[in-house]
């Protein structure tokens, strides 16, 4: 039986157990709130969502009040708004909100854009969360022109001793969203409300560092924070992104969907989609490391060939030249002398083409890991087409010709005859089979550096130059159709605990990840767990 209630004179249907806030939101009626979120249990902390219920002596919180049959509710009577404004001003009194009442507000936003990128927040103009701030939204809604109470700055120190996280609890309004996400939804309980009364503050138990408190650095506290109190050190301060695109994280086969924020054609931030912010567990790699990992300074930009001019060095060449040279050299060897080391981080399309090419030159030397590579070494291969940086590559004595394809330059590549620059997973379109045979979509979000090409298109070019037919694909769709028609492809899985991307250790490119791993290892050791590997 459908149940009905009345909100603002509108008859709305609801289901048993829904709160007034949920019913109203579904019906398109806005009730301001700072602490409630659809994915978190409600606790009624901010009291901004009060409503006028007929027959009730007080104004109850709509986020904790279950809807009842025949209830008559009003959400914005003059009296309610007056009380709400008062409550909100009390919240503002403990938040550095001077900018909300400053007459220079609009001009300042225009002129001071992007000036401040560090330190404690001393007003909206220095806050990185300004564009998304929920306090500012509600301030607009309630038309706050002045704050009746003196603004009190708590003057707490900036907490930035831990890797990745910067916490400025001077901005905190104690909505406890971070605590609920950590404790109730994910179950880590790394943070809690500490102290009592006016000194109440979000913190760790016994004031230990987050590294020791059981924090896994998933960043969900940051995603749910309505203010700028919690921020990620590296991936903030860019203002509002130029675009935000949903894609799949390719650092392991888990297949987490993530939103990538792009500014100045660079990946600047990675976060979960809003509706999954508190539900999906992200790992520290995916949440914090991607921008620094993909925007490193020494990305490969141009194909290079090793030539002897004065001495043997790598010289940048055009794609045509690099491909022609590679193909000609490959043709000089016997099929069983050619090996392929395929990175599991490549897209399905690239892995399919690698297998196809190997089959056509009748070499069955396609391997995916170092174990396989060892096997190839014992078979004394003479040519290696590698898409994966491995220490072993430099140690193969029998090698006569080495082609590498990567995103970063490595010392191991000194020996390489040809180096081909390829794209990272935010720079190409494609699909990737993850755990449980899930096919995930990968989207091109930013332009690759220099003239780097996606792996699948590099292999097509090489195959064509070697004289094989059937490697002309006008688009990726055509290639995907071919894959759909052919036999099912076995794609190696990437474990969650792999701390690398295409053979590049994440800690080498992301300083803070290095810190994180070191610190965790030392903590493990001190707790008597020995030097066991860090789990994320």
């Amino acid at each position: 039986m459908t149940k009905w209630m009345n909100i603002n004179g509108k008859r709305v249907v609801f289901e048993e157990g829904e709160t007034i806030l949920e019913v109203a939101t579904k019906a398109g009626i806005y009730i301001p709130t700072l602490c409630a979120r659809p994915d978190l249990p409600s606790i009624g902390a901010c009291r901004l969502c009060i409503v006028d219920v007929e027959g009730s002596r007080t104004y109850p919180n709509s986020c904790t009040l279950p809807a009842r049959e025949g209830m008559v509710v009003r959400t914005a009577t003059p009296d309610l708004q007056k009380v709400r404004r008062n409550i909100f001003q009390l919240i503002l009194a403990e938040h550095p909100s001077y900018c909300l009442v400053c007459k220079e507000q609009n001009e300042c936003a225009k002129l001071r854009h992007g000036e401040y990128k560090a330190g404690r927040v001393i007003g909206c103009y220095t806050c990185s969360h300004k564009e998304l701030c929920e306090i500012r939204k509600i301030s607009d809604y309630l038309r706050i022109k002045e704050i009746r109470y003196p603004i009190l700055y708590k003057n707490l120190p900036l907490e930035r001793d831990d890797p990745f996280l910067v916490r400025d609890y001077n901005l905190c309004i104690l909505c406890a969203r971070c605590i609920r996400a950590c404790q109730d939804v994910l179950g880590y309980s790394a943070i809690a409300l500490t102290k009592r009364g006016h000194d109440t503050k979000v913190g760790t138990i016994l004031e230990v560092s987050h590294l020791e408190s059981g924090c896994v650095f998933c960043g969900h506290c940051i995603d749910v924070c309505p203010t700028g109190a919690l921020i990620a050190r590296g991936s903030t301060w860019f203002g509002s992104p130029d675009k935000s695109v949903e894609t799949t994280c390719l650092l392991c086969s888990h297949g987490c969907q993530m939103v990538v924020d792009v500014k100045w054609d660079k990946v600047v931030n990675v976060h979960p989609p809003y509706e999954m912010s508190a539900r999906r567990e992200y790992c520290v790699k995916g949440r914090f490391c991607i921008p620094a990992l993909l925007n490193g300074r020494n990305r490969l930009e141009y194909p290079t060939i090793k030539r002897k001019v004065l001495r043997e060095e790598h010289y940048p060449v055009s794609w045509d030249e690099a491909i022609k040279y590679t193909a000609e050299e490959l043709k000089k060897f016997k099929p069983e002398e050619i090996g392929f080391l395929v990175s599991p981080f490549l897209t399905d399309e690239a892995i399919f083409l690698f297998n196809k090419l190997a089959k056509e030159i009748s070499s069955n030397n396609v391997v995916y890991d170092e174990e396989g590579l060892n096997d190839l070494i014992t078979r004394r291969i003479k040519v290696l087409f590698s898409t994966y940086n491995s220490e072993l590559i430099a140690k193969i004595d029998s090698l006569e010709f080495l082609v590498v394809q990567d995103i970063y330059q490595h010392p191991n590549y000194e020996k390489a005859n040809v180096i081909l620059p390829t794209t990272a997973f935010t720079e190409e379109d494609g699909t990737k089979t993850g755990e449980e045979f899930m096919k995930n979509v990968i989207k091109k979000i930013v332009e690759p550096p220099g003239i780097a090409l996606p792996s699948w298109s590099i292999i097509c070019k090489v195959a064509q130059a070697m004289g094989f037919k059937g490697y002309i694909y006008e688009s990726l769709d055509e290639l995907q159709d071919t894959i759909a028609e052919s036999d099912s492809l076995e794609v190696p899985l990437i474990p969650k605990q792999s701390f690398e991307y295409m053979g590049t250790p994440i800690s080498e490119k992301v300083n803070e990840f290095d810190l994180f791993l070191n610190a965790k290892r030392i903590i493990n050791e001190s707790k008597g767990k020995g030097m066991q590997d860090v789990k994320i």
Partner: protein
Amino acid sequence: MSKFKLLKKEECVPNLHKFVVSVPDIARKVEPGQFVLIMVDEKSERIPFTLADWDEKDGTITFFVQEVGLSTTKMAFMEEKDSFYSIVGPLGEPAYVDNFGTVVLGGGCFGLGAIYSVAKKLKDLGNNIITILEAKNESRLYYEDEFRAFSDEVIFVTSDGSKGEKGHIYDVLEEMIVSQGRKIDHIKVIGCNVMMSKVSDVTKSLGNIPTYATVSTIMVDGTGMCGCCRLTYDGKTKFACVDGPEFDAHKINWDELIGIRNTSYIREESLSLQNFSPQCRSLAKILAKMNEEESI
């Protein structure tokens, strides 16, 4: 390297650090209004800081650092007895000082400290000094007592009215000149460019009262070679490092300075923070604790 040793560091107000550094050579030569260029480490930016105070006898200089980007964050992470990579100075022209009569000194943010040395000098020359200190909130005001010692009048102004007047420096100036009819002979302002441009607009409209502003620009070498600190002054290109940093505020093209020059590198500034990691203090604390336990 203990050449530029940090002797004292304190966060006097949120986000603003007072540094006392030992550089005897600079302390001996510097004059009010001059600045130094600082590099925190080998790979840091070079940032100009106007000196607030110095002690010839001890060989120390004092300046204020507002944390705004990568290099200033590195500075904020420094601890006493650490050393800077390099400090160059004193650079720029000294502030234009004379016996003007009644002088208004306006300071905001980092300018509160920077204007202090000028205040001392002007007082020595026999001026009647009115100091106006601006901040967002009373928790951002500092150097009160120091200014009281060298000025005849200290006026506070905050955006939210928590201390002194509510509003901005130019509101106070306008009131002083228009409503109270006071005669002001000279105005000096140091602070952010936005504030200085506003003051400049007001004083221009109120009968062209001489207004001097110490501009803050991006700087690299500080000797007029790189041209990063260029600004259009009276229709001509001037370099803040050798021709300034103090200029007649009415002749500066503020729109260009604020809108184009100072925002040119926002992309690089933001992206440079992507892979910034200060040394992990949590780890240091844990290690210290472990050592302690072991010794017990």
